[in-house]
């Protein structure tokens, strides 16, 4: 009996290893908890993308459940999610864009604002404009404070200006229903 157990041991170890590695096939290394959850929006003072004279601060999110969508015209996936975001907006959701430009290197130079505005207007006219307005993260400082790793990413912000959800990647019906809808509905019901 002892001998059987002894010879079975490698098999048990092997099965354990297989289960461990098999799980690895389905785990997404990009999927890790955002460290900003349940925290208030970081402080910022940034201009409106279309009207540089107007500035926003973190207080702009108070009083309304907001989807803050990080995007740029250079981002292909962002263009793909625009129509669905438009649909969400049509359903009455408040969507704000956090726009940042890839070509602007704060160490060297800045593309003219007019050019950025033109690119954005063209893109939104061509596809759809789901945004109430766009905040222009000129030097990508707010993105850094938010822990943005790329675009598109979306934050769900509650009426108190707290971050409730951070999603990396595009929003589509599946992601919305599974991840956003439960929390969103709960917040709106409050």
């Amino acid at each position, binding site marked *: 009996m002892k001998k059987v157990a002894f010879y079975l041991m490698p098999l048990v170890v092997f099965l354990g290893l297989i289960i461990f590695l098999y799980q690895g096939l389905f785990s997404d*290394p*990009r999927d*890790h*908890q*955002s*460290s*900003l959850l349940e925290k208030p929006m970081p402080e910022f003072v940034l201009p409106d993308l279309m009207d540089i004279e107007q500035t926003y601060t973190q207080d702009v999110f108070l009083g309304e459940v907001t989807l803050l969508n990080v995007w740029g015209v250079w981002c292909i996936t962002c263009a793909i999610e625009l129509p669905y975001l438009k649909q969400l907006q049509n359903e009455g959701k408040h969507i704000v864009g956090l726009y940042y430009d*890839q070509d602007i*290197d*704060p*160490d060297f130079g800045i593309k003219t604002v007019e050019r950025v505005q033109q690119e954005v207007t063209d893109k939104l006219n061509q596809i759809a404009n789901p945004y109430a307005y766009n905040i222009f993260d000129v030097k*990508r400082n707010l*993105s*850094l*404070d*938010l*822990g*943005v*790793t*790329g675009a598109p990413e979306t934050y769900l912000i509650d009426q108190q200006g707290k971050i409730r959800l951070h999603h990396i990647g595009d929003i589509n019906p599946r992601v919305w229903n599974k991840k956003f809808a439960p929390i969103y509905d709960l917040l709106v019901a409050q």
Partner: protein
Amino acid sequence: MKRLVTTLLVLVLGSFCSLVSATDDKFHFESPEKSALFLDLTKELRCPKCQNQNIADSDAMIAVDLKRKVYELLQKGYDRQQVIDFMKQRYGDFVYYQPPVNPMTIWLWLLPILFVFVALAGVVMTRKRQPAEINNEQLAKAQAILERDE
């Protein structure tokens, strides 16, 4: 031959120059200690976008932004731990290559030690089992066989 040597020389010198200027072109520090700390930190911070690279290696925009932030913070007088904490606050433990010790990660250190102890116990136990008793009858039998062979 001469041309080959010149080409090689140019190549070697060229790569040397690029090594020297790698830290100097964008990020200039007043003290060599700070410069060294900057290089250290950018090696130990992990790029959130391209996960198998540190931010010194990566060319992703986010890595460039993080490098610039590290530079900015060091210029402001932050020390090593403060910079790491700043990054962890935003990007989580994930952003630093050294994992923190907590109930989940403690196994990274405990498992190897456990393994050594289990293996040692295994060795000791198999050792103990070895001495099989040989009684006089068996000895006599063996003796008989030896004698017969002679």
